[in-house]
């Protein structure tokens, strides 16, 4: 058994800093790199791409990245674990294999995890009386059944560990919990038991710290952002894990950013609900038991975490089409910038009403004044300029399209000192709404396939 492993965070979302995973591989020692690409709405975007081209449906960024890092990760035997397979992990694997062949790399083993995609199984599951009702609202799936775009189960670390045990150097999954990408290698390397709740829980907490990339190392840092060195070259977090369950959060030495009690604490608070019940497929972690200790420069030790037995369910993430939105903006300058923007908003709303257009919502915000803090924000004495931002949502696509044609005319037919319409007419974009639910674990089975190029 290794006496420690270093697991690096390479991406925190699809669209994250493209140089980060390259830095993680080249700027210091690591054993594993995890890359999280999937937000709640990402799967529906990928599903749409796959419907247009059956070979797509995964995080396309992965392929040029692999072309850059494959020689290094093969030479250094760094293992890469990512959920960037989206709705087509096998297509993603094939694309990586093609890249490996192009680079002349032989003997590369890639594992894929499938079985999370239940879009084609919804009728079968309904026949088995598996309801998949909305876990937040309690509504039945029949409300949206015909409009479902994607449906995926959140698997945990088990299938990733299986792929690693079968010798995969790269593991590509579909929908997997973000945290599993980090703690799967700990279970694989240290042989932690599936009922060793405390060890699983500390791995989960490390996963939560790593899953948003630079947000743990000084990015989006509210306590004292000015004190963070060299954000331009921010180092993403690394979890240095020990068989005992002790984990040190750090980053490569020659990088910017900061690892402190405060940066790590902020990330621990990100998108959590009840801190005593952080639910994952493998265990429930209790965030009120986490002990943090600064043990060196850019080194924070994580210990004491308590875990509880896991539940009998996987979370399911479904998305469904729910109408259209469009957002238009115009900029108004001094004098009376706000009054002019407010008048323009009223003129626009009158014209939309005259046209008889029906919207589920029309929302007006004044960027620079209140779009972030609403009524909590005090009004400044002098307003130099303000951006009028109007958004509409409707199930009538034509109404949303027409709204887009009513913005530009305001420039010549409304209040003066207005600009900022370079982007053209706002186009309707489809709303993909989110349907969270639970599924009994025995209703689905992850499948692991490991192949060699």
């Amino acid at each position, binding site marked *: 058994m290794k006496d420690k492993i270093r697991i690096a965070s390479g991406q925190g979302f699809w669209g994250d800093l493209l140089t980060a995973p390259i830095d993680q591989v080249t700027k210091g020692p690591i054993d594993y790199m995890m890359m999280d690409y999937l937000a*709640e*709405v990402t799967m529906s975007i990928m599903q749409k791409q796959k419907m247009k081209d059956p070979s797509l449906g995964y995080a396309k960024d992965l392929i040029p990245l692999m072309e850059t890092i494959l020689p290094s990760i093969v030479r250094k035997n760094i293992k890469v674990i990512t959920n960037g397979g989206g709705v087509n992990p096998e297509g993603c694997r094939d694309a990586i294999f093609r890249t490996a062949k192009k680079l002349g790399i032989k003997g590369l083993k890639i594992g894929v995890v499938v079985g999370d995609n239940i879009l084609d199984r919804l009728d079968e599951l309904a026949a088995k009386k598996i309801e998949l009702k909305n876990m*937040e609202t309690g509504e039945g799936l029949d409300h949206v059944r015909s409009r479902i775009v994607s449906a995926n189960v959140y698997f945990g670390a088990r299938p990733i560990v299986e792929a690693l045990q079968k010798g995969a150097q790269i593991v590509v999954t579909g929908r997997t919990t973000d945290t599993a990408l980090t703690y799967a290698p700990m279970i694989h390397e240290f042989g932690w038991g599936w009922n060793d709740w405390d060890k699983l829980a500390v791995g989960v907490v490390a996963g939560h710290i790593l899953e948003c990339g630079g947000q743990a190392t000084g990015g*989006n840092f*509210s*306590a*004292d952002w000015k004190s963070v060195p060299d954000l331009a070259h921010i180092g993403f977090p690394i979890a240095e894990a020990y068989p005992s369950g002790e984990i040190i959060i750090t980053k490569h030495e020659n990088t910017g950013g900061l690892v402190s009690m*405060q940066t790590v*604490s*902020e*990330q*621990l*608070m*990100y*998108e*959590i*609900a*009840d*801190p*005593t019940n952080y639910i994952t497929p493998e265990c429930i972690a209790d*965030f*009120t*038991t*986490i*002990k*943090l200790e600064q043990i060196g420069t850019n080194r924070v030790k994580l210990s004491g975490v308590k875990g509880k037995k896991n539940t009998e369910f996987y979370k399911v993430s479904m998305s469904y089409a*729910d109408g259209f*939105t469009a*957002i238009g903006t115009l900029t108004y300058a001094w004098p009376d910038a706000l009054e002019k923007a407010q008048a323009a908003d009223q003129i626009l709303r009158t014209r939309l009403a005259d046209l008889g257009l029906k919207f589920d*919502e029309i*929302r007006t*915000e004044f*960027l620079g004044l209140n*779009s*972030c*803090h*609403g*009524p*909590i*924000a005090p009004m400044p004495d002098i307003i130099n300029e303000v951006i009028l*931002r109007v*958004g*509409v*949502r409707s199930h009538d696509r034509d109404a949303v399209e027409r709204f887009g044609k009513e913005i530009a005319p305001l420039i010549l037919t409304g209040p003066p000192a207005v600009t900022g319409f370079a982007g053209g007419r706002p186009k309707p974009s489809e*709303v*993909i*709404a*989110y349907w*969270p639910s639970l599924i009994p674990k025995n209703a689905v089975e992850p499948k692991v396939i490991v192949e060699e190029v």
Partner: protein
Amino acid sequence: MKVQLLQIAHARSGDKGDTGNVGLIARRPEYYPMLRKYVTVDAVRRHFDGICHGKVERFEIPNLNALNFLLHETLGGGGTVSLKNDAQGKTLSSALLRMEIDIVEKI
């Protein structure tokens, strides 16, 4: 004496559907009891009047000198449904740090 939370705390916020979460962390361990005492569910509900249209929940995380707030019905429907500029509640953190509390303690 009046203190703005920005002086004694830092924060991070995010979203889960139409619910925003704000983690509020004391800048020093000795400030945590003040956060517990003054930044109550009622005070936070009043502060977010007009923004949060549902219930407010509060959880204590004393080991991190932190409180976690859940603000339900806050993000205009959440996710891609929301028409808000801040549809994911990223700035709810600094909105909470604007809050002033009237304390009897000295800092």
